């Protein structure tokens, strides 16, 4: 018997849009000689000491399950790390859960807090999974669009405008994917005041919290009165260059933590054991490597943002992550058109901004997690592409005249 969509698939899933990133991946994957600025992960391979720790764990035969919340030793290390690096203290026994990437942490956070129809304010442009995650958990994503004029930083007044009776939480990602924008302490305090005024939770996705370049980073729960209303999500993927290990964690007050742990134990059991051993090593001895990576990203960020502005694509200086988000509005193309033509003509892959939400239109996301030589070549090609567009535009104008 042939299954038919209509009768068997969940309505929610049928309504989910496929990821725009995926679509672009299919387009770029078959091409030769592509320089990709489309990659959402570090160009560093996980440091050898971390890889070696995983090998050792395998040799020792650590191949069984761990506690649902993760190895206690790892949770203790995470607790120390949060205290030292982000000035907020969480109990390893009751407030920390080790997850399969930050993505799973977002999933269990949503499922733990949402009843059907509950609203979550999602700040756009944002990572492609946010809205589907809210919807899969039965919630309603209320999108708020940040503006280029504000360097894509959310204003508390924008949040206040969309708050309703059903608003339960704000999903915040700072530093942001795709814009790289980061909220500093003052800006977070203003946002905190709103959440306290309306008694909201914040799901703070701080996965890029290690990768900041100018201002000192402030973790949201470190702000007074915020720890009790924050579900903090972080992990090892970006800061420690461990994307493929799929290891993240979520810290929150005990009540929320035990609710999330219920979902986690039924749906996931526990995160990969050898990855957890690797993460212990990363937290114990990985600091200097992280610092080196940050230094290297900072140089590349400076280079690429400066270069974009030089060749005529206006680009704000992002405070963190490894994305530049230049405007391509001057070309008159949509971000999809720009990205597709650029890929076909010059073999440079970027991600069109509109896949991250309407407010991303007119922009492209360019990851600078590539070698400086690759970035130089990419800039050269994009410059040539812009000149080509210009010549076309000029000749069109000529034709009109004659």
């Amino acid at each position: 018997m042939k299954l038919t969509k209509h009768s068997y698939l969940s309505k929610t899933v049928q309504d989910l849009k496929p990821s725009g990133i995926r679509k672009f991946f299919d387009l770029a994957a078959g091409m030769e000689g592509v320089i990709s600025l489309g990659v959402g992960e570090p160009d560093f391979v996980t440091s050898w000491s971390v890889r070696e720790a995983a090998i050792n764990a395998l040799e020792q035969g650590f191949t069984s399950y761990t506690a649902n919340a993760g190895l206690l030793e790892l949770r203790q290390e995470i607790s120390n790390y949060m205290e030292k690096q982000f000035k907020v203290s969480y109990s390893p026994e009751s407030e920390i859960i080790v997850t399969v990437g930050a993505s799973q942490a977002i999933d269990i956070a949503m499922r733990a807090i949402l009843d059907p129809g509950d609203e979550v304010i999602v700040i756009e442009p944002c990572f492609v999974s946010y809205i589907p995650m809210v919807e899969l958990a039965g919630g309603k994503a209320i999108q708020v669009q940040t503006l280029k004029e504000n360097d894509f930083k959310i204003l508390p007044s924008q949040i206040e405008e969309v708050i309703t009776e059903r608003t339960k939480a704000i999903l915040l990602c700072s530093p942001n994917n795709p814009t790289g924008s980061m909220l500093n302490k003052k800006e977070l305090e203003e946002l905190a005041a709103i959440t306290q005024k309306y008694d909201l939770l914040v799901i703070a996705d701080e996965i890029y919290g290690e990768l900041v370049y100018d201002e000192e980073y402030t973790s949201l729960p470190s702000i007074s009165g915020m720890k009790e209303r924050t579900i903090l999500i972080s992990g090892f993927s970006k800061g420690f260059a461990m994307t493929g290990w799929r290891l993240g964690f979520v810290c929150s007050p005990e009540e929320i933590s035990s609710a999330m742990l219920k979902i986690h134990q039924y749906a996931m059991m526990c995160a990969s054991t050898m990855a957890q051993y690797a993460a212990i090593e990363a937290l114990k001895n990985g600091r200097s490597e992280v610092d080196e990576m940050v230094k290297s990203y900072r140089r590349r960020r400076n280079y690429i943002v400066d270069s974009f502005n030089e060749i005529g694509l206006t680009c704000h200086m992002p405070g963190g992550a490894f994305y530049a988000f230049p405007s391509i509005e001057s070309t008159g193309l949509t971000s999809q058109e720009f990205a597709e033509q650029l890929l076909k003509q010059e073999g440079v892959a970027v991600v069109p901004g509109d896949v991250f939400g309407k407010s991303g239109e007119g922009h492209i996301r360019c990851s600078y997690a590539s070698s400086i030589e690759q970035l130089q070549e990419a800039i050269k090609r994009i410059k040539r592409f812009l000149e080509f567009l210009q010549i076309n535009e000029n000749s069109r104008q000529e034709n009109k005249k004659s």
Partner: protein
Amino acid sequence: MKLTQKEMEIVEILEKDSRIEIEDVAKMVQLSKEETEEAIKKLEDNKIIVRYITVVDWAKLEENAGITAMIDVKVTPKRGVGFDEIAERIYRFTEVSSVYLMSGTYDLSVIIEGKSMNEIASFVSNKLSTLDSVVSTTTHFILKKYKHDGIIFDSVNKDKRIVVS
């Protein structure tokens, strides 16, 4: 001498790739091209940046594949000048590529490059061991260079990431 943070950045960038365009260095450290040139000149004048060289994998060239030996040298230090005088007498030989004063069971670590094992043997027996202060030498020949000055020879650095994610 103390460097500013930007000067330090410049040193680190050039140490990895001394042929990078000044304009690119300037962008990376957020200085103007002129300021960057000035900083580099200052670094050169103060001999912080001593020289720009090329790392060559000589082993790839059959005819030029030389031989490198590391020699542990025990010496008797002299009153007043310590190890410096004998070190100088050793490093002045053009065959000697590096000399380090070491802690531990011997005093000087001397690295020599020669065309053949014979050439190095004759240097050690005729020139090095005959120096007054030299008490003993132990010569180790390098069989294969895997990593040199932070550079892994023959490393395959293929980007394993998916193109768009």
